[in-house]
């Protein structure tokens, strides 16, 4: 009987131990798993909460800085971007702190300022922390018009965004477009003096006549096309009077410009930055370098391009007109790639000046095309820009004193190859060029 009892107890104990062991291991496993899952979910939710708060803050920050008039601050990088204007912010137990630093890069007439805002978002409940670096780019000083994507220099009584919406102006890359009555500098005389290689500060017919070897007087020179060439350098082409057409075309690496005036065609062909220049005037050396300045002291009836592209990638054409210019086709650069191309090859300038003897001078540019139009150019107008195209894509920049848009204008900013800042620029102006978030990352505290 004793043997029987011993056997039962051992088996029972073994059975209980085995069952308990299996049960406990299953339980432990389940508890650990549940804990891991819960901890993971909690961390995700808490990090997400900080993330959302930080994003919301950055969004409001962006809205605030773009609505602020930076002209009210002498040095916005110090006077505006500081902890007085952007103090610590607390919301939903998340504390966000700003820390500002800036780098200033001086240029000839202006400076480029890069403000770094290091934001730290911490939760009061735990040790989770997110760090973000936001970058604000400002240009301050006498800013070349071509550095601003779209600038209508006039007083409007509606907010900027409403103006852009009402006038169907769009920027795919959300660039800061301006409508603002600011003081500007149009140093047309200086541009023409340099283009015509006239020494001194006064632009007059007397000086021009002297330059082209005419009898000296104050009368304008005869209507016609003149080539200004000195020491194997063709500095500019000067046209006195209106022209019917200017046609741009390319052939291999040769840029061709055809000017039609009073029914006659004048053609030049050249290689940009190289010693090859062909024209109707046999006295000009073929091995000349052309500085690609064309000055029309009058109206341009039509600017057109032949074929798919009218401009070489190496071209840097400066086309100046004193009167009204009408664009009749797209103006495209060969192999243009909006992701790779950084500078425009054509700068169109329209401004009245001392040589333009008109009673009521109007310096306007009109885009008068039927189909979808693409223009790769920097446009500077001391007057009105009119778009009659249904769909105009401008890769470059536009400065004008007034705007009339009968379609949609889409702007994609490219600076000009031509350093226009010497002549066409703002006065002391602060332009908020860009805002972007450079990084958002979790920070771990041990």
């Amino acid at each position, binding site marked *: 009987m004793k043997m029987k009892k011993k056997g039962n107890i051992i088996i029972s104990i073994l059975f209980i131990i085995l069952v308990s062991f299996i049960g406990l291991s299953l339980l432990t496993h389940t508890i650990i798993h549940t804990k*891991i899952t819960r901890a993971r979910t909690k961390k995700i939710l808490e990090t997400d909460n900080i993330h959302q708060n930080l994003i919301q803050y950055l969004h409001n920050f962006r809205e605030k800085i773009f609505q602020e008039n930076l002209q009210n601050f002498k040095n916005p990088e110090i006077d505006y971007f500081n902890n007085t204007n952007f103090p610590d912010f607390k919301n939903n137990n998340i504390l966000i702190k700003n820390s500002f630093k800036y780098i200033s890069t001086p240029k000839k007439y202006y400076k480029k300022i890069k403000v770094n805002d290091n934001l730290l978002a911490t939760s009061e409940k735990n040790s989770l922390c997110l760090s973000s670096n936001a970058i604000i780019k400002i240009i301050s000083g006498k800013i070349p018009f071509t550095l601003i994507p779209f600038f209508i220099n006039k007083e409007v009584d509606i907010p900027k965004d409403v103006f852009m919406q009402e006038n169907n102006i769009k920027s795919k890359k959300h660039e800061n477009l301006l409508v603002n009555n600011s003081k500007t500098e149009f140093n047309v005389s200086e541009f023409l003096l340099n283009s015509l290689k006239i020494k001194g500060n006064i632009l007059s017919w007397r000086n021009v006549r002297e330059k082209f070897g005419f009898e000296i007087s104050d009368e304008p020179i005869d209507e016609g096309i003149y080539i200004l060439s000195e020491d194997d350098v063709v500095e500019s082409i000067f046209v006195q009077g209106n022209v019917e057409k200017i046609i741009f075309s390319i052939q291999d690496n040769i840029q061709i410009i055809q000017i039609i005036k009073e029914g006659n065609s004048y053609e030049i062909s050249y290689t940009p930055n190289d010693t090859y220049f062909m024209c109707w005037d046999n006295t000009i050396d073929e091995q000349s370098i052309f500085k690609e300045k064309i000055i029309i002291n009058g109206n341009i009836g039509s600017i057109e391009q032949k074929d798919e592209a009218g401009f070489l990638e190496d071209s840097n054409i400066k086309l100046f007109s004193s009167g009204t210019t009408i664009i009749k086709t797209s103006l495209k650069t060969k192999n243009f790639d909006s992701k790779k191309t950084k500078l425009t090859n054509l700068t169109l300038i329209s401004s009245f000046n001392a040589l333009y003897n008109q009673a009521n001078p109007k310096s306007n540019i009109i885009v008068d095309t039927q189909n979808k139009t693409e223009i790769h150019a920097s446009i500077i107008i001391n007057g009105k820009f009119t778009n009659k195209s249904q769909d105009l894509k401008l890769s470059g920049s536009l400065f004008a004193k007034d705007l009339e848009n009968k379609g949609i204008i889409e702007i994609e900013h490219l600076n000009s190859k031509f350093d226009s800042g010497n002549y066409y620029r703002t006065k002391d102006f602060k332009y908020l060029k860009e805002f972007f978030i450079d990084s*958002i990352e979790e920070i771990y505290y041990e």
Partner: protein
Amino acid sequence: MNNGFSILELIIALALTLTILSIVITNVSETSIISKKITSKQDVLESVFHTVDTIKTDLTKCGMRLQEASKYFNFPLFEHSEKSFKVIYGISNEIFQTDYFKGEKRIDVNKNECFRKGKPVLVYNIENDVFEFNEIKKSENGKIILLKNLENDYLKNSIIVVLKQINYKLYSKQNILKRKTGKGYFQPLIENVTDFYIKLFPESNSVLYRIEVNNKEQIRGYIFLINTV
């Protein structure tokens, strides 16, 4: 007779023992099977969680510290094919406090743990329209020596970024999704992957991914590439 068991007693004892043993063995084996099933499911879930977390972390960081440079110099931050993808981001950056010229190799950086031997770097200056990829050959006390001589001049305020590149690839024959950091080898991230899909939506700067494990569990995610906006 009194000292031993009767045949009947032995048969009953044996029958009882066998019954108990069979119950125990059956229970143990069943419990073991269930336990194995649960454990393997939990393992799969945990590895799925880990994979998703890793992918999310990498995608969230994609483009970090490289937004400006990638936009200006036009190099991709995210690339993908049918069964693989690659992300690139900066783990640290420094601004040059002085000018460095073409041919130089030695650059001063603040004492920064990220600037270590073997790390790839991007050096750029948007103002001067120059950039190049290089690698850190040596790092010592706030100075780094680059593997290749600088190919351009980099004036003060140019930027050097330490890069991290991460690759993901599905090895279809092995059904393993593997991950590789920098120059390292592909390491298994999750096994029994029967399908893997990834797609970039450039308009919304977001990535859709889908992982299927054992032809059963399927995880999908839509991640906004916050560091590329």
